[in-house]
């Protein structure tokens, strides 16, 4: 009896815990428009695994210390990765066409960045990537 119960527990546990394996980071779509020209901030596999760490550290540096380097700046990411759709509008962050949401919706890992941050580059002229002209 105990064997059957523990087997059930083991199966349930595995199903719940390892179900995410079907959507691994390697299988995710990489919706980047390479026409921006600049090279990637970091190699793709590094970004996939650690982009949140870079963003987290940058958020602390920018808000608390006022350091506004462009490399890991969220606005910089947005300017490069978020391209307008065919009709000229920008994808909503709630749809999978948005670069960040493309992976995050599929992985069901909600991010709270865009509760506050702009999810699209605004109608300011972008002189070069990462620099918004005022």
């Amino acid at each position: 009896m105990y064997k059957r119960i523990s087997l059930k527990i083991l199966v349930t546990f595995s199903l719940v815990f390892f179900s995410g394996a079907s959507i691994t980071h390697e299988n995710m779509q990489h919706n980047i428009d390479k026409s921006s020209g600049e090279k990637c901030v970091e190699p793709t596999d590094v970004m996939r695994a650690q982009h949140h760490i870079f963003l987290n550290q940058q958020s602390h540096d920018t808000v608390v210390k006022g350091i506004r380097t462009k490399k890991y700046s969220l606005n910089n990411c947005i300017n490069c990765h978020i391209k307008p759709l065919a009709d000229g509008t920008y994808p909503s962050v709630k749809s999978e066409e948005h670069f960040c949401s493309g992976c995050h919706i599929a992985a069901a890992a909600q991010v709270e960045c865009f509760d506050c941050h702009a999810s699209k580059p605004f109608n300011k002229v972008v002189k070069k990537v990462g620099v918004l002209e005022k």
Partner: protein
Amino acid sequence: MKKYELKLNRRNFLKNSAMLGVSTIAPGVFFQELAYGRALDEPASPKIRWGMLINTNQCTDECDACVTACNEEHGIEDFGRPTTDTQWIRKITLTEELSKKSISVPMMCQHCENPPCVDVCPTGASFIRDDGIVLVNKHTCIGCRYCMMSCPYKARSFVHENLENQLPHTPRGKGCVESCNLCVHKIDNGENNTACAEACQKDGHQAILFGDLNDEESDISKQLKKYATKEVRSDLGLNTAVRYRGI
């Protein structure tokens, strides 16, 4: 033989001293504006203390250029709900009880040196940056609103609804508390002025002056020395960075 031969004579001495003198003073003359232009990777400096001087003699009840400019700069929307809509800067109309004289006062976060809001924040989200700007770190803010209770100036607002069109340089969102941040994005990018001060100057009123309180040569420091100025609720001992003339 030495590579550089010193020609020790009076002519050279005078020439060299003059050059030394000029090259010492010239940067102060030509590069003064750039002295504040921080490099992007340079943190805010504790040597600076940003502040404002507001001359209410130049303010009128009808003008709210500063309020409009602030709202536009930071993407603050009007939802038609004045009790819950955010206001970073507002114009207060004061009427003196005895004489009934009326004064118009722009009021915003006073960026105190001893801010009550920083003291009471449980997570430390409300903090004072090295250069004196009091900010809310919205990554850490849990939206408890205790800082709003504690602010003597009622400077803070809570975002009561979902926001969608935030501007990239001013992230703001539902559930966090916010207040005037002295246009910190402009300061960090080298434009050492705030939207409200710029709008006021453009309108010709010259009521709001922004500058470095620690720099004795700045306009604001000179005006603070020249005119009688006041700190609102000075009895609380908060040492605000925003000072007023005309009240």
